[in-house]
């Protein structure tokens, strides 16, 4: 389980301190889909970055499968950071413009020293992930500016999944994309969930999307304790996730897992 307890985060601003997240708590079971909704500026992205260990909270704790996060950002161990991967709203600014799409997908593996040693294995791994997210082989040779927004977001999803995270945090992954590409990205994530336990935190403005795709939906304003001392009730999305697990039938034609 990925859990965040009583997270508070504020930022310095010219007008004083701005509290982005106030004592927010959430719990994401492995294999479950939790939707997080709320208006712009309500702290959704800040909370996402904290649970992905990119940003340290002022107070509160994050625990990932029993391991409490004690340091944040690059000081945090790679093993721990790999467990939670984040996908951002704007793929253009989330990839290095100098890397080819294929290189961008493998870059985190290479940087962590866990990419396959042989070139043939690397290509095989890359192509298996490209196929899973619906990218054709020729696109892997292109630079980010030579592919569409939707194609680049597919690459960002492949990049995140290639690290085999236990939890995926999607911060508005489709708000700039057409509905078919959105559906394709979510189908890929659902297919991974059919194979192994992957908890998904879906942050979105789109209440309809959250209600239809997620097991549970929380409004960040409800997750935050309004009054001093009052703990927010954490979301525990069990029922639909459990049902999905029961309905999951092993099938022989399922795509083999990379690695």
């Amino acid at each position, binding site marked *: 389980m990925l859990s965040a307890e009583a997270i508070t985060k504020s930022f310095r601003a010219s007008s004083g301190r701005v509290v982005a997240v106030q004592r927010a708590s959430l719990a994401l079971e492995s294999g479950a889909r939790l939707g997080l909704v709320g208006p712009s500026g309500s702290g959704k992205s800040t909370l996402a970055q904290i649970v992905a260990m990119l940003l340290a909270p002022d107070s509160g704790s994050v625990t990932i499968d029993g391991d409490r996060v004690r340091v944040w950002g690059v000081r945090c161990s790679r093993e721990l950071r790999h467990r939670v991967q984040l996908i951002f709203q704007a793929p253009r600014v989330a990839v290095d413009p100098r890397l080819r799409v294929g290189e961008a997908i493998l870059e985190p593996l290479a940087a962590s020293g866990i990419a396959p040693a042989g070139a043939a294995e690397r290509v095989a791994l890359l192509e298996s992930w490209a196929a899973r997210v619906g990218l054709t082989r020729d696109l892997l040779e292109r630079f980010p500016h030579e592919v569409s927004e*939707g194609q680049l977001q597919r690459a960002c999803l492949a990049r995140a999944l290639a690290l085999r995270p236990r939890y995926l945090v999607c911060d508005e992954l489709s708000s700039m994309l057409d*509905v078919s590409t*959105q559906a394709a990205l979510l189908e890929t994530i659902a297919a991974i969930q059919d194979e192994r336990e992957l908890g998904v935190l879906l942050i979105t403005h789109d209440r309809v999307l959250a209600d239809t*795709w997620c097991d549970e939906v929380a409004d960040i304003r409800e997750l935050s304790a309004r009054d001093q001392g009052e703990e927010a009730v954490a979301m525990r999305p069990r029922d639909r996730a459990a049902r999905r697990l029961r309905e999951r039938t092993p099938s022989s034609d399922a795509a083999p897992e990379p690695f």
Partner: protein
Amino acid sequence: MTELLEVEELSVGFRTRRGVVQALSQASVTVGRGRLLLVVGESGSGTTVLAHALLRLLPRNVNVSGSVRLGGQELLDLSPAELRRVRGRRMALIPQSPASSLNPVRRLGGQLLEAAQARGLSEQQSRTRLRELLGELGLDLAFVSGRYVHQLSGGMQQRIVNAMALVGEPEIVIADEPTSGLDAELVDTTATQLREISARGAALLVITHDLRLAERLGGRLALLYASRIVEVGPTAAFFAAPAHPYGRELLRALPEREGKSIPGMAPELTALPGHCAFADRCPDRFDRCTESVPDLYPVPDGVLARCFAHAER
């Protein structure tokens, strides 16, 4: 009857090192005064290129053919000086992403005044006009004048660029993805503002991939796929029953409908097929679909669809 804006067989190709990217192929649309046309398509389908081509905001490596007439005047033949008298005054653009369209290091007052004066208003007239316009949008000129763009909320930024577009009392307003990345509340505000623009009598052309916004705005809708208009007709008719298989599959992908993606991807604009561009992904494909590019065929309810399934009617 001549419409305010008449676009005929407009094609735009970009010369790149990977060959010519055919971003728009023979698009024909019209918009009348006080009318709304929605141009809907996924990123890379040609929607933004259409908007920019109307204003001739295209880079040099471009091949343009066809015709764009505003009140009968051909825009593609205008000199740069003549074009400046059209842009902003007769035809205005509400750009995608207000935050990045405004100058971050100048206060907004100067930028608003500059926009108004570029439309030929005196300083005094500009202030009066801007005060009225912003007031109608719920903003105070004095309040925003001393501020920088990052000090305003997304909704306020949107209203600033809306005011800049409207200050020259244009005959037609083109809005490029006006709700991209906005939350539900701001989408509501923007939809209301767009309806108000239309109610003032200006023609409105809205580029969007947001199907829910399109359904709410109504008017007419042109659906683009791989650089071509594949369906055009009343927005209500489209949402009731799309005539083109791409439109039908796109609506099925809405989470509240089936949330089902369309297999595959749109073809590369450098290598558009010599047949229906959607054929490879179309569940209803038959032989003819992979032989030639279909025309726009009439369907009931005043709809045109680029699909051979409607060719025999």
